[in-house]
């Protein structure tokens, strides 16, 4: 049935693509018109345009399904456990890292530094020099977090003894993991490996991790998506601004923390650690996202991205319909804001460590 005559009954509202003069013609006639600032798609590559259009048709249904899966996901924090006990494929001589796969030779400074710190923390190496030697000899297996249903901020280094958040997507029953956030300043995720960093990691393993484990288990599960939704309303974007989310998390956690058999001092220390770190929520949020987007990994014909991640050397994407395959490109230089005393030169130095 033709709908053509429908438009005769309606006010015409126009999208104009091309000649600007047509837009002014329509404005002259008091017609509502929106000009598109059009540029050739796909850089003007006709073969690519034609392919993209075909792809659009093929992928429409699958993408709708993909978006629904993500929306219907219910990531819930169920447990806090040691990486080696819970992350699939994890072993003592494995380090998980951010972004697509990478070798020691091609790693940028901060990721190398974090790897070295992790070996010192795991007591595989006594000092940075030994750590570097072990790493350069290929005695450690590197693997992207994304290959293990895991994620981590910045360098994203996960080693076997670290405690990780265990998220379960209640709708689809898949799980995801991420480390506990170390706080601001010098931290392993930025590539620092000095004494303070290692000591804090040890404290997290000995005190924070077990305490969170007890409290989270008592809670029966904390819905991360609900916290995210509230925090977004409160001004967080839940990436670099997590203050509301971190406080909301603490509000959920505190009663259970108090219900544990832990001493007041420990509870206070845990409490202070979380309040002292506005990014406490970040890692949990990342794992929640991971558990949501993992539901489209391998979704046939879908052109949605199931992952986008970088490791300082490469940036990689995974396209849902193409499963576990990575598509990578050299990481671009971030246009950042610098703390006083630091400039772009410091960044370049970090990126081009020999």
């Amino acid at each position: 049935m033709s709908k053509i005559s429908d438009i005769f009954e309606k006010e015409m509202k126009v999208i104009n693509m091309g000649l600007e003069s047509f837009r002014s013609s329509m404005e002259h006639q008091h017609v509502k018109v929106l000009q598109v600032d059009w540029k050739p798609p796909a850089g003007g590559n006709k073969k690519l345009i034609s392919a993209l259009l075909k792809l659009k048709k093929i992928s429409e249904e699958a993408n709708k399904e993909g978006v629904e899966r993500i929306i219907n996901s219910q990531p819930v924090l169920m447990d806090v456990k040691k990486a080696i006990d819970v992350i699939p494929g994890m072993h003592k001589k494995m380090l998980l890292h951010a972004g697509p796969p990478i070798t020691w030779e091609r790693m940028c400074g901060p990721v190398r530094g974090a790897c070295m710190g992790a070996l010192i923390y795991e007591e595989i190496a006594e000092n940075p020099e030994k750590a570097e030697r072990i790493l350069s000899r290929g005695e450690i297996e590197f693997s992207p977090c994304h290959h293990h249903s895991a994620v981590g901020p910045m360098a994203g280094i996960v080693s076997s003894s670290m405690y990780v958040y265990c998220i379960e997507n209640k709708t689809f029953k898949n799980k995801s993991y991420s480390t506990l956030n170390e706080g601001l300043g010098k931290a392993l995720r930025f590539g620092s490996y000095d004494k303070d960093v290692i000591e804090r990691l040890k404290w997290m393993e000995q005190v924070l991790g077990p305490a969170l484990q007890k409290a989270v288990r008592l809670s029966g599960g904390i819905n991360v998506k609900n916290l995210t939704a509230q925090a977004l309303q409160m001004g967080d974007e839940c990436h670099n601004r997590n203050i509301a989310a971190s406080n909301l998390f603490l509000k959920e956690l505190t009663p259970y923390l108090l219900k544990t058999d832990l001493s007041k001092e420990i509870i206070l220390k845990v409490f202070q650690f979380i309040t002292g770190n506005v990014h406490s929520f970040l890692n949990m949020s990342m794992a929640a996202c991971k558990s949501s987007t993992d539901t489209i990994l391998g979704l046939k014909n879908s052109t949605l991205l199931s992952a986008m991640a970088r490791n300082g050397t490469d940036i990689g994407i995974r396209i849902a319909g193409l499963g576990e395959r990575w598509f990578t490109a050299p990481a671009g230089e971030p246009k950042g804001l610098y703390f006083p005393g630091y400039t772009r030169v410091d960044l370049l130095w970090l990126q081009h460590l020999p």
Partner: protein
Amino acid sequence: MAVKNIVKKNRYLDSVLLMLISNQIKELDGIVKASVMMGTDNNRALLEGDGLLLSEGKEAGANDLLIALLVKDNADLEVILEEIEKLLSQKKKVSEEKGSLIPKSMESALSIMSEANMVVISLPGDYARWEAEKALMKGLHVMLFSDNVSVEDEIELKTLAREKGLLLMGPDCGTSIINNVALGFANIVNKGNIGIVGASGTGIQEVTSLITNAGCGITQAIGTGGRDLSARVGGLTMTGALEALIEDKKTEIILLISKPPSPQVEDKILDILEGCPKPFIINFLGGDVEKSKRRGYKVAKTLEEAAYMAVAFVKKEDYKKIEFNYPLHEIKSLVEKEWSKFSKDQKYIRGLYSGGSVCEEANIVLDDLGILINSNAPIREELKLKNSKKSVEHSFVDMGDDEFTRGVPHPMIDFTLRKERIIEEAKDPECAVILMDVVLGLGVHENPAEEIASAVVKAKKIAEEEGRYLSVVVSITGTSKDPQNRDRQKKILHEAGVIVMPTNAQAARFSALVVRRES
């Protein structure tokens, strides 16, 4: 140089905002280093590491704003602090800018204007095709102004439009008027009850303008694009548009304008009209009218006739064929005044057209009067001009044809080529009349009469200097509601010594009388 610390107690600002502000402060006069931060332990340590922390700064806490500066000795601290305060108290602009978002794609345009129902596309042909397909997929009607879309693509798009029940006007659709909104090159015309579907841009312009100038109006004028009635495309848009006009309650009479369709398509269209409950008029310009006549359909030979037949219907009058809108004796005296000034060798009409269909119509009118016209778009194959740039005897050139427009704007927009040609014809001792169309409306030149007039004045002077008189006859396609205003344009042309006729067909007839030196 000196380090300065200023602490603003209990003033909280977002850290990212503060980093941005710090960057702006660094640009101020007299500043060497600058940092504005909340006074947290971490931040104070950072400042200390950079030698920017004084004892007063050390007192700052996590809820205090700490301004740390390294200033030149001659710096005016008061001015600097004033500037910093301005930066700190500025409002975020992000939300304010939302209203002026400029979409980069059809998708984002739709997210801003979700109620859009028409997309006008005038992009290069290769891309136009894809955007048109996207628009149709999203359920939007499309006017595809662009040319250079392949026949295969045209068929694919039109089939898609048909499946979706949408209107696809074009490719290569120059003119459409939908709901009285002029799209592309079109005139501002009256609202009324005449529905038009046409495979010709200037044809639609001439007919809708004549209808308006006669005091009637239109419902819709749907352009199909020039190739729609070819055997391969099969009139996909024309048939859909016809059906829509038949359905449309406001349309009381349908006018169909086109160059001659392929025989199969003609049959298809005539079949649809067979069941048409509304009166209709067919104008296959230059085509064989026998088939239509056999079926007893009303047929118009020219655009003028098509318009005036429709006007007669609306005014409930009997249609009478006319030669001129003015009394014949007035015309004849005007004709005589023109040719009486000719020298003896001046015999030929030179038609310089910007619109293909009006060129064709003028050609048909003169052919009917027994005057054979050479042309780059002739109605008889043997009259094809060998060189479109060089007139031979009676010659009409469609300067909107591809061979003239390659790489330059259309002659309705840019008059350079037509003006050059006017001068060239004036130099030819055998040229008697220059016959032209002046097309008004949206999308075209803002003052075409002025362009033509300036060349005509020069041309007439050239002829005069060589002992001749150059007659210039023009018809204006347009209305008094057009931005250029038909009456104003007419005045400009009159002042340049141009004869302005009310229709294109009449301008052609007038020229014939002039070269035949009738009286």
